[in-house]
């Protein structure tokens, strides 16, 4: 018997499932926010037609892909299916993805902690980060969201807050 064993790396089905669900949720939320939030809408309008970006975990996913098609922002599922991706936000590990998507670590903190690799043209990547920040504010209760983003937005009027948030929530779940 050799003194060296070969060890197959294991699986992390639960973490993977959690991350996949939250990526799905985030993808849907972006699609919804692009309809109801003027800021998000504006950011997307500045991006080129057919612009596509992905967010996910290295080394082996899961991923979520969002793209613009004929001016409409769409969640395209967990795979870009050959569609060219202009901006890729890659979290360095599934476990870091879990930290971020279970809101233990905000995007700001994750950036500070070097968890993300941003690939693509910088102005586009910045637009995506701003969009994610806004969506984060929608999805999370204020207390958590104000930790998650650098500065809790001042545009946060009650009308926009409740109208917008309910809009994003229902659309996220219904997928419209």
């Amino acid at each position: 018997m050799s003194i060296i064993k070969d060890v197959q790396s294991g699986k992390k089905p639960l973490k993977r499932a959690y991350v996949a669900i939250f990526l799905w949720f985030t993808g849907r939320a972006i699609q919804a926010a692009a309809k109801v939030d003027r800021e998000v809408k504006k950011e997307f309008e500045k991006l080129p037609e057919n612009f596509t970006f992905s967010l996910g975990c290295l080394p082996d996913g899961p991923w979520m892909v969002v793209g613009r098609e004929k001016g409409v922002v769409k969640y395209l599922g967990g795979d870009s299916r050959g569609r060219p991706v202009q901006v890729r936000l890659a979290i360095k590990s599934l476990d870091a993805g879990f930290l971020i998507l279970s809101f233990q670590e905000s995007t700001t903190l994750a950036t500070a902690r070097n968890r993300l690799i941003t690939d693509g043209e910088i102005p586009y990547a910045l637009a995506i980060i701003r969009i994610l920040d806004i969506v984060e504010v929608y999805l999370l209760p204020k207390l958590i969201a104000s930790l998650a983003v650098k500065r809790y937005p001042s545009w946060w009027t009650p009308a926009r807050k409740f109208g917008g948030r309910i809009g994003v929530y229902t659309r996220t779940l219904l997928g419209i």
Partner: protein
Amino acid sequence: MLLPDYYEFCCRVKIVAGHDALEKIPDLLIERGAKKPLVITDKGVAGAGLTDIVSRAIGDRVDAGLIADDVPPDSDLRVVNRLARLYRDNACDAIIAVGGGSVMDTAKGINIVVSENAEDLMAFSGVGALKRPLKPLIAIPTTAGTGSEVTQVAVIKDHEKHLKMAFGSYFLLPDIAILDSRMTLTMPPFITAMTGMDAMSHAVEAYYCLQKNPLSDAHSLAAVGMIYRYLPLAVKNPEDRDSRLAMAVAACLAGIAFSNSMVGLVHNLGHATGSVCGVPHGLCMAILLPYGLEYNLHKRANVMAELLLPIAGEQVYLATPPEQRAQKVVSLIRGLNENLHAITGGRHARCLQEIKDREGKPSVPRDILPQIASAALLDGASIYNPEDTDYEDNRMVLEAAWEGKPLDRTRVKKG
């Protein structure tokens, strides 16, 4: 000293520094199995006689006779490809880059092409595209400021297709950086002043921006103290070799700090001002640095206060109550700018409206500030700034920096 929940730090560059550091090049090349380096530089550097100094120091133990001195001030894909061909045709086995940011970028680009045997440089852009060590690259900076001898990024422009390609990889780090006082002895005072302030901005921003960590902190603290002390000396007495060497070392320390901890608002607005108005990077840094500190002060006062000791020394540190130390750092950096302004006979601008072009016309007219504020939204440095920035914030800071008045901190939106 704070231990972040998670951090990364890396600087694999071997640093060789001293008044006769250049003489070590042959040994360093031979250690790495190289005998025939391609020396690349630009016309300005060659014209100042710096490549001659390098050649003489190298002597004839290795064949460093092939010198390409036509790197343009703006890195260019065609030049990269042409010089890569030169490298291959002459069977070179290492690269020596003598110069500033553009020469370093070009050298890194050539290195990718010749090491990966690439036809299309574009295939290696983006993060993680490079997988293995490249050919030995020796970086010899000729300004004490940019720190590009220790950074892992390169920007190459494709002027035909109007594309800017960014490359990022630890393999792009030069193998060796040579810091030799002879390389900066002839730098004119006002350039010394602004490049030195670029280094200062690296050290200071690295100390308060988001990716700070114990090792970047230690590099920042050392750099800040050295720059504050030696920069005025080097500007006043350009031929003082010891201050020149100290500045080269400090700029390198600052480069290591910021390439690991990143920079924020100061570089964010500085990049934008540079690209909109074509003014030198270092000058923007000098002017904007106090504002970056003021803008983030409410989030980072304790951290900024720690800079006072290396900057001002024990007496001032003790005489300043802890809650005023951050503010004191700001005023000392303003004072340093004033001092440099005086020594350079007014050429070191103190505010944006004082920056003049060659004909003496103002380079940054006030009505262009909105354009700079929007351009800044497209720059990546904002990600690492402690406080959020939007168009209005950028505008507010730029207006203050244009007039040269301290920032009205009550107007900073606090989150």
